[in-house]
């Protein structure tokens, strides 16, 4: 029995960092699942290099995974970490800035040898483990490689294979430190290596070794419990935004009774939506990897014409290529969901980094007057809800809908509970009915109270009709060059978007009262950081509120009134000021932009300081 003293913590931030080859992402993901299972609230931030396999041991090659978990609600991966696990010197060098003073460093000494020092451009004589530069921290050094190898002698495995188990040692040790269940990971290992028993057992063995290391050695004076968070009952799993997006689309497919068609072309960071969906063919989910983004959206338009729940998805550069076809879908008044998992731009930009800089593209990025509905998810699990909403609105209103996500929530995880299908809103799809000669001519652009037109499927008797990208006469849908008809149709297409406002929830204040000194108005993946910042500020007595907009076009009908309730409105965004432009124009409120454009999420403290500065 370990001599470690048990301590109770409210929340902890751990960062695993190592070489791309060290399996830190897998370690983090496993820890995430165990922690979700344990019932903590959590938020994660994977931070991997742009290259597929960045050069070994270099700074460019460092791959990190940060997780923040606790017994209270958690909204961000944490600004700074309490525990930093580093597999080599490059990982330490790259991540020390993220460690709290006095925080714990768990270092794999083997990763600090001459070779690694050289690769990380650290002078021979400046080994941080020895030059006393880490005295402000609680440094634990372990030769993980040595122990791992020892644990696996006479398993018959080669050194290369053996060393690949290193991360399991770390995982086991941290599991021990925080009383995490190991079963999940054991099952995972068994499944993953079912074809290779030797490797399977090796991994399990090494994880045990890690656990035992904590248990038996005196290295760790303390051991921590983090009680489950108070969350609604149910089974939770750690889910990433892109997975949640896929599940949200599938849920909409089930609810609407329509087969889903996803036409796409791979692109970082949107590809995982395709990868996820393609696993669900048994739910009648159809995925099509087209030759490019134009074919992707066009195939989806074809599928929509045929009566499928049609989705297309990409990231900025791919969305740019879809803009012409989005115009067509707008003219056709066809249900279509366009997913943009945003990344840092412009052009190819920083493909693996996050940004919110495609909002204006979604709003205005087409030729002609071409309004569409725009929604944005605010967290990994919210991707489920908003993806579902995107489908609901597209189908109910016969209109293209943009669904905006971003690299940060797409790859970040948080606990998520499978919803009951019964708790999801209805999606009623009514296709136009067959007609006989006596029913008279079918009018493809006749409109209902939502101004949406009938969805008339090929194959239905008597509904033969033609649609297209030329301006069409209202009601009949025939080509029309009539000046007044064109003006009417432009207004109708806009009004159609505006009316969606009657079918979405009113804007809520996420925290703080209806009126006050300052409103933090956010959208998308910055939710967690802004919420946390607001909590801190209010804790310090600032009269600040936070509202987070998930319905961006149209805005909830009460947004204007909310804005008027505050002396100052600040719009923090991970771009050079986009929502703020729309707000200033639409509501004529002198909103203040606050921008970060570094390919990184906001840190709550940054926001706190900025708001104080504004209020000062």
């Amino acid at each position, binding site marked *: 029995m370990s001599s470690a003293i048990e301590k109770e913590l409210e929340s902890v931030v751990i960062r695993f960092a190592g070489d791309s080859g060290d399996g830190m992402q897998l370690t983090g993901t496993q820890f995430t699942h165990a922690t979700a299972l344990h019932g903590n609230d959590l938020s994660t931030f994977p931070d991997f290099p742009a290259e597929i396999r960045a050069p070994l041991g270099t700074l460019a090659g460092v791959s990190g995974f940060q997780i923040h978990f606790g017994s209270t609600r958690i909204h961000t991966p944490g600004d700074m970490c309490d525990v930093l696990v580093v597999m080599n010197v490059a990982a330490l060098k790259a991540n020390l800035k993220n460690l709290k003073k006095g925080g714990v460093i768990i270092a794999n000494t083997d990763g600090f040898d001459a070779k690694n020092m050289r690769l990380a451009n650290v002078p021979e004589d400046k080994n941080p483990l020895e030059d006393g530069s880490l005295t402000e921290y609680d440094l634990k050094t372990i030769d993980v490689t040595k122990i791992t190898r020892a644990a696996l002698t006479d398993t018959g495995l080669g050194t290369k294979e053996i060393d690949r188990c290193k991360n399991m040692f770390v995982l086991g040790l941290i599991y021990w430190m925080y009383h995490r269940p190991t079963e999940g990971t054991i099952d995972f290992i068994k499944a993953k290596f079912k074809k290779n028993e030797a490797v399977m057992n090796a991994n399990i063995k090494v994880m045990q070794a890690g656990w035992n290391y904590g248990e038996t050695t005196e290295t760790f004076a303390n051991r921590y419990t983090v009680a489950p968070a108070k969350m609604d009952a149910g089974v939770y799993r750690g889910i990433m935004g892109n997975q949640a997006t896929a599940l949200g689309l599938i849920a909409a497919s089930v609810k609407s009774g329509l087969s889903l068609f996803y036409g796409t072309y791979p692109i970082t960071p949107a590809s995982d939506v395709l990868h996820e969906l393609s696993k669900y063919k048994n739910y009648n989910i159809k995925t099509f990897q087209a030759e*490019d983004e134009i074919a992707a959206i066009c195939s989806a338009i074809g*599928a929509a*014409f045929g009566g499928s729940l049609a989705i297309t998805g990409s990231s900025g550069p791919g969305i740019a290529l879809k803009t012409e076809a989005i115009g067509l879908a707008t003219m056709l008044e066809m249900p279509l969901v366009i997913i943009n998992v945003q990344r840092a731009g412009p052009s190819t930009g920083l493909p693996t980094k996050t940004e919110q800089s495609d909002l204006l593209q979604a709003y205005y990025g087409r030729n002609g007057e071409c309004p569409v509905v725009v929604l944005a998810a605010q967290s990994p699990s919210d991707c489920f809800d908003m993806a579902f909403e995107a489908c609901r609105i597209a189908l109910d209103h016969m209109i293209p809908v943009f669904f905006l996500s971003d690299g940060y929530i797409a790859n970040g995880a948080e606990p998520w509970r499978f919803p009951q299908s019964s708790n999801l809103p209805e999606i009623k799809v009514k296709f136009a009915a067959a007609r006989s000669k006596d029913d008279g001519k079918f009018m493809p652009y006749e409109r209902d109270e939502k101004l949406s037109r009938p969805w008339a499927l*090929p194959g239905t008797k008597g509904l033969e009709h*033609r649609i297209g990208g030329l301006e069409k006469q209202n009601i009949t849908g025939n080509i029309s060059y009539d000046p007044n008809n064109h003006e009417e149709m432009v207004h109708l297409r806009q009004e159609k978007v505006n009316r969606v406002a009657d079918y979405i929830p009113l804007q809520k204040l996420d925290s703080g009262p209806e009126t006050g000194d300052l409103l933090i108005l956010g959208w998308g993946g910055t939710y967690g950081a802004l919420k946390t910042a607001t909590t801190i500020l209010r804790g310090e007595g600032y009269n600040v509120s936070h509202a987070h907009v998930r319905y961006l076009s149209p805005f909830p009908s009460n947004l204007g009134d909310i804005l008027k309730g505050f002396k100052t409105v600040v719009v923090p965004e991970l771009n050079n000021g986009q929502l703020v432009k729309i707000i200033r124009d639409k509501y004529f409120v002198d909103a203040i932009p606050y921008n970060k454009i570094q390919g990184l999420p906001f840190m709550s403290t940054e926001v706190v300081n900025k708001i104080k500065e504004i209020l000062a």
Partner: protein
Amino acid sequence: MNEVAEKLTSKDFSSDQEVRWCPGCGDYSILKQVQTVLPDLGRPKEEFVFISGIGCSSRFPYYMDTFGMHSIHGRATAIATGLKATRPDLSVWIITGDGDSMSIGGNHFIHMLRRNPDVNVLLFNNQIYGLTKGQYSPTSEQGKVTKSTPMGSVDYPFNPIALALGADATFVARTMDRDPKHQQAVIKKGYEHKGTSMIEIYQNCNVFNDGAFEIYTEKASKKEQILLMENGKPLIFGANDDKGIMLDGFKPIIVNLADVSVNDLWIHDETDLVKATILSRFYDDPSHEEHKPRPFGVFYINTKKSTFDELFNNQMETALAN
């Protein structure tokens, strides 16, 4: 009630929209032939869908009383692929021009041929951009003088048949606006083929490229310039069917039937890719001495390749079964 029972006529397939091509445009004939063929296919009208891109030719769907989409430039092929994949029950037709399919739509065109969905493509080739008032197209002959090329175009033209074969098309044929019977036969054959049927139709744009195919359509030159390919039949042409094609190794040569027996002629075999490729290269400038006659009819049919919609949906069924 049995749909097919009610006999459809070509009138059933013409919409109430006024046809707005220039008087004398070759498009009229193609519209007429399609409206003539469709009723005989024994298929309920509502199962036909015509998808087009942009161009004069792409106005076609408006004149058909079927389901139709006049989409955007070059993308009809991609839209049709998505529709056919999800609605294999429909008869999907693509209407496109030489600019629409060979220029801006080239990528979707070759990818569709590669995947082989069971759709029919009518490629209206007038060797010009009609709707934009007469610029040269990727099928215009080199040196073409147009609004955009006052000194003549420098680009070499595509050979649409060769390109389609290179992209592994499973049905490749050529016909012309001025020969209704031939057109109808080829279109029907294309419809019957399971897979993508690529049908190039020589179509006269009498406003911007009048007479481009005259020598293949005018009584005077026609028989000398056209090689009508019929499966299993020898390749014969000439004013009085007095000429034939023979192969000397890989080299096709024109022979006079006075000197050579019909039995020694090249027998057309629709299923032979190499021979189809050789025939596709009968594409030289008819003004040249000893040029080859231009082949019309079916170059190639491959029935061994399954259709994209089949494979796509078989996979779905397997998944759903589990």
